[in-house]
């Protein structure tokens, strides 16, 4: 019971684990490119939670700074990714990822 009532590192890690799992699931299974992107965002958030959690319980600033950078890069990534998605839509007239298999030979 004490384990549950006193919030510790593991609680945050658990949440991040769930977020990560859901993100991966989205990336794996959803055909819609946008949803895949959302999954990526989830994963990044999971990572951020870990960063911050560790840095809090370690009392260092590195995690915080890293989380900051991650957010920035996430923004960049989202921008680029959406631009790509739009281009894909222009070319393939669809954002169905599974229909884009020109990488096959």
């Amino acid at each position: 019971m004490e384990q549950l009532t006193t919030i510790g590192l593991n609680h945050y890690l658990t949440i991040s684990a769930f977020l990560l799992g859901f993100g991966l699931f989205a990336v794996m299974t959803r055909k819609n490119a946008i949803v895949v992107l959302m999954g990526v965002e989830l994963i990044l958030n999971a990572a951020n939670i870990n960063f911050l959690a560790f840095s809090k319980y370690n009392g260092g600033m590195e995690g915080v700074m890293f989380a900051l950078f991650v957010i920035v890069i996430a923004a960049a990534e989202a921008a680029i990714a959406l631009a790509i998605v739009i281009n894909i839509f222009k070319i393939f007239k669809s954002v169905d990822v599974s229909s884009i298999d020109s990488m096959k030979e």
Partner: protein
Amino acid sequence: MSNPTYTVIFYLFAAITVCSAAFVVFTRNVIYSAFSLLFTFFGVAALYVFLSADFIAVTQVVVYVGGILVLLLFGVMFTNSIMQTGQKSEVTHIIPGTILLAGIIGALLYTFYTTHGWMPSETTLQGSIVERIGFETMSRYVLPFEMVSILLLAALIGAAFLARFDKSGK
């Protein structure tokens, strides 16, 4: 700290985060998942506050909710009009996906709860860390900071370039 209200609130936000994330993933409607992603971001921001990283929380809200989520919604709008049923997006690899979902989450949790390597040090972060971030940014992390800003700039320009409608029609 064992403050009951504190604990309750934490669990509340944790639940919001995880459930909305799950909804993001499991709903078939792109619009729904986009909006529930909004809740996820809020929840995560709240958790940041719990982690006494208020500045990051604010950034999270501003950047994600104000930026990325809007971008995503734009993407949705561009790629399929809301009215038609094209908003529904099918799934693939459902079986390996679920297996891996369960497997990875299980594996991670197992690791966390069996590992006692990291014991929290006494000096945890307390209070606001805004000015410490300012110091760090300008002193120790100045180079990464500049690089990231340049990267961001380049990314935005590139994105604009990529996403523009050109008449030539590539």
